């Protein structure tokens, strides 16, 4: 700029220069941290070295630009290009719209639904029913949706006929240094603010991680933008910097930004499958709870034996379960849930074993593995207005963690605190967890056997608790839920047997171990759970979950006829007594028995064929119980004697 003679003239020119450079600098700052493919973090001096070399003419300008306002910024080609473009036209004011574009990606159907759901989540999160959502749903994968997440406005407001004569004159002498100083301060603030706003995180996620994202951050510089609609404006927050007054106007800088954190890149980068697993595995928990509200205690201890058969209704569960769980949603969970909730998503293979690593990782997610979950936003529960999708997913891994893995031993606070009440305590969390039930399985004709199965499970679990008390084996705490799980599995097994939809994966395993008669033997050993039970209960220890479940299922399947057979006999009365004494849950047992009685006629006659086996099993149970009682509390002793007498009379 030519500094012509005359103080005022030169000063005005200088002021003009300062203002122009202020615009350029602010634009630089904004673009530097919002431009795609620009890593403003580790550029250090490399870019500054390369840019002078690239164009000799701009060498001095680069340097001078660097030193303007005493803020040496990293320069990248993209940013410089934009700056040069701006300098050519030099429009004022500067309006930078930071737009989040969703690239049209040809996703396969598996991945497509998550994107859709992500958009839905995104839009719901932002409460922004903009074109994104509609585009996605209408045009499928070909929509390119844009959303303005930030709008920066840098302008110089000229004041007209205001203190132009006296005050301006006087202050103009020290205006320039003051102006420069204030501009420096303002730009410092701008630099810090740019990194505090939510869009910076998106910028970092998109640029820093090496994954391809479905989203792109595009800053658009213009001098005129369409004003926001009222709806948009309602969703934006404004932050205005204090203007810098000059003699002839003032420099204003403000930003409109969306306050909720955007969950942009979470869907595209993180692998979906691990996220699903906990949700998937956790889904069976819902079923036992919903199916039998009369037995809140017995069912639904939140163990998590994954049953491949559960795929069908698990998804339905997810669809139906907008449970309001007070868990801070994490993006990964949200994704998985979003995916799972899509009924079109695939039938996932049995996730029995894989859940462990993701569960543990999820459990430790709270230690904030940024690298691992680069796109994941914060854990803060506040920014997500779409809890229905997020929360169940979060809770399920919790449930899983509680019940499943003994090594992880997550059953800390919720689970293994009181063995005697473990079942009961486990249940309350899980009912809220999964409030839905499988709609596919018909409940009417299975009530009876399932109730019975539940009873047996309770017996076993309580027996185990007794043994645990004496032996102090912690594994049993894991086993009890697993037993209940097997019960639930058996229930669904029966459902599926009726429907013959899914082959039971558990049939393959260890048929012999399912022999209930061997069970008392197992109890004989130490009162600890031995192989069959362990197979059923302690899957991480011995067999696979499938085998264990299969064992128990088979065992329990044989159990139902017992009740039907004896329902008419006096033993049915003694049975509840027996159980009542041992388990000390008279109400529920009587309820179960009532249901059994009610359901007995509906049980198919084919079950009567297994009466002999059932009798044998009953004997086994009694022996088992007696053993447990003998080892357990003395308070049971009388009941045991009573039951012994009853059982002997029955036999």
């Amino acid at each position: 700029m030519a500094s012509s003679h005359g103080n005022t003239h030169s000063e005005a020119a200088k002021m003009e220069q300062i203002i122009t450079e202020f615009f350029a600098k602010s634009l630089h700052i904004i673009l530097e941290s919002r431009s795609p493919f620009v890593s403003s973090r580790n550029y250090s001096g490399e870019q500054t070295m390369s840019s002078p070399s690239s164009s000799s003419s701009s060498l001095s300008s680069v340097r001078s630009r660097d030193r303007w306002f005493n803020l040496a910024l990293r320069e990248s080609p993209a940013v410089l290009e934009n700056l040069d473009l701006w300098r050519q036209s030099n429009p004022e004011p500067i309006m930078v719209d930071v737009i989040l574009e969703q690239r049209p990606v040809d996703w396969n159907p598996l991945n497509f639904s998550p994107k859709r759901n992500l958009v839905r989540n995104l839009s719901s999160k932002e409460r922004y029913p903009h074109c994104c959502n509609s585009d996605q749903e209408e045009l499928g994968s070909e929509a390119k949706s844009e959303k303005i997440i930030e709008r920066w406005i840098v302008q110089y407001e000229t004041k007209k006929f205001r203190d132009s004569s006296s005050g301006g004159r006087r202050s103009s002498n020290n205006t320039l240094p003051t102006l420069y100083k204030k501009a420096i301060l303002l730009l410092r603030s701008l630099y810090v603010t740019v990194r505090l706003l939510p869009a910076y995180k998106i910028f970092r996620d998109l640029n820093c991680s090496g994954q391809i994202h479905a989203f792109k951050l595009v800053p658009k510089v213009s001098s005129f933008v369409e004003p926001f609609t009222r709806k948009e404006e309602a969703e934006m927050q404004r932050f205005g910097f204090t203007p810098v007054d000059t003699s002839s106007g003032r420099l204003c800088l403000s930003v409109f930004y969306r306050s909720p954190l955007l969950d942009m890149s979470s869907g595209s980068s993180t692998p979906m499958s691990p996220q699903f697993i906990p949700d998937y595995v956790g889904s069976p928990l819902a079923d036992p709870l919903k199916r039998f509200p009369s037995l809140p205690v017995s069912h639904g201890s939140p163990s998590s034996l994954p049953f491949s058969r559960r795929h069908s209704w698990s998804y339905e569960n997810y669809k139906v379960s907008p449970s309001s769980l007070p868990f801070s949603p994490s993006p990964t969970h949200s994704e998985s849930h979003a995916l799972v909730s899509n009924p079109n998503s695939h039938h996932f293979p049995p996730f029995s074993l894989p859940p462990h690593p993701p569960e543990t990782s999820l459990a430790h997610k709270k230690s904030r593995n940024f690298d691992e979950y680069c796109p994941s936003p914060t854990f803060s529960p506040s920014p997500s207005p779409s809890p229905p999708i997020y929360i169940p997913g979060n809770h399920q891994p919790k449930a899983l963690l509680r019940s499943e893995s003994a090594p992880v031993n997550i059953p800390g606070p919720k689970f293994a605190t009181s063995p005697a009440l473990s079942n009961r305590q486990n249940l309350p969390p899980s009912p809220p967890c999964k409030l839905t039930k499988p709609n596919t399985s018909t409940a009417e004709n299975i009530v009876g056997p399932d109730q019975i199965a539940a009873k047996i499970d309770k017996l076993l679990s309580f027996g185990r608790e007794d043994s645990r008390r004496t032996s102090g084996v912690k594994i049993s705490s894991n086993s009890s839920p697993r037993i209940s799980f097997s019960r639930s599995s058996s229930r669904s097994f029966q459902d599926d047997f009726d429907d013959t939809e899914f082959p039971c994966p558990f049939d393959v395993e260890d048929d012999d171990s399912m022999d209930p008669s061997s069970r008392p033997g197992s109890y004989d050993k130490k009162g600890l759970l031995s192989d069959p039970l362990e197979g059923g209960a302690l899957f991480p220890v011995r067999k696979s979950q499938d085998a264990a479940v299969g064992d128990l299922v088979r065992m329990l399947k044989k159990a139902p006829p017992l009740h039907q057979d004896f329902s008419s006999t006096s033993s049915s009365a003694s049975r509840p007594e027996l159980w009542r004494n041992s388990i000390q849950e008279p109400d529920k047992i009587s309820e179960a028995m009532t249901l059994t009685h009610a359901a007995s006629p509906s049980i198919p006659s084919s079950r009567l064929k297994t009466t002999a086996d059932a009798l044998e099993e009953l004997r086994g149970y009694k022996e088992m119980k007696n053993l447990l009682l003998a080892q357990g509390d003395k308070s049971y002793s009388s009941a045991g004697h009573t039951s012994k007498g009853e059982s002997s009379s029955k036999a």
Partner: protein
Amino acid sequence: MHLKIRNILSFWDYRFLHERQIVSTSHRVLNAATLQPISRVQAVIGFSSSVSASTIIMNCEVCQLKELEVEHFQIHEVLSCILHTIVFHRALGLVRPKDVDLELFEITYVQCGDAEIEKKIREKIEEFISWVEKHPNKKSQICLSFYEVKSKQQSWFTNKTERLYWERWYVNLNVTQHPRAHSGKSHHSKVVVDPGESESEERSVRRAALEASIREVMFQIIKFANEKKDHVPSISEGIIHFPYEITFPRKLQ
């Protein structure tokens, strides 16, 4: 000899009581005891005595930042973030900003890129942490003050320099000692001990709340630094930042 000096100094203290910062006076006393002249000091690190602030400060802007509830292992990061942000705002010399990500939170703050500043702030934070360990009071306050050094007429035994504080920032911390914070002893450890599920839930909720509070404080700093600009003295060549000091009172209830 020392007594004599002390008397003289006390006389001078009294004389300048109404014109100077008592803090600066005390500094003179401290330094005079060692018979070292005080040259123009750009930045002084030191504990402030428990002299009450009966100071007469001209044009000193004071900013009380919102109180933050931090756990012991978070002190370092939180303080580092806040102090660097404040200094960056007032570093009017040429800076090459350096972005620093916090490990415990999803916040990126800016440093001046000056090694000396970093070192000084780090040392001060470590001092503070050790002080907090010794004084497990709940609330503590760190004061970052920017001052101007005015050298007065030469006295016959020492140079008189005084500080005119033109800005003070008070960082209020509430250091919570949670019973399960095993890592509290080591102020360098940032390992979060996860005692259990419910604990970790609480912790994550607390951490999220703290992160939001830190952001608020950062915005508070930005707003304050933007609003109050007139009192900032002019920059001079060759100096990156204004002289500043970080102090914390010994006892604060």
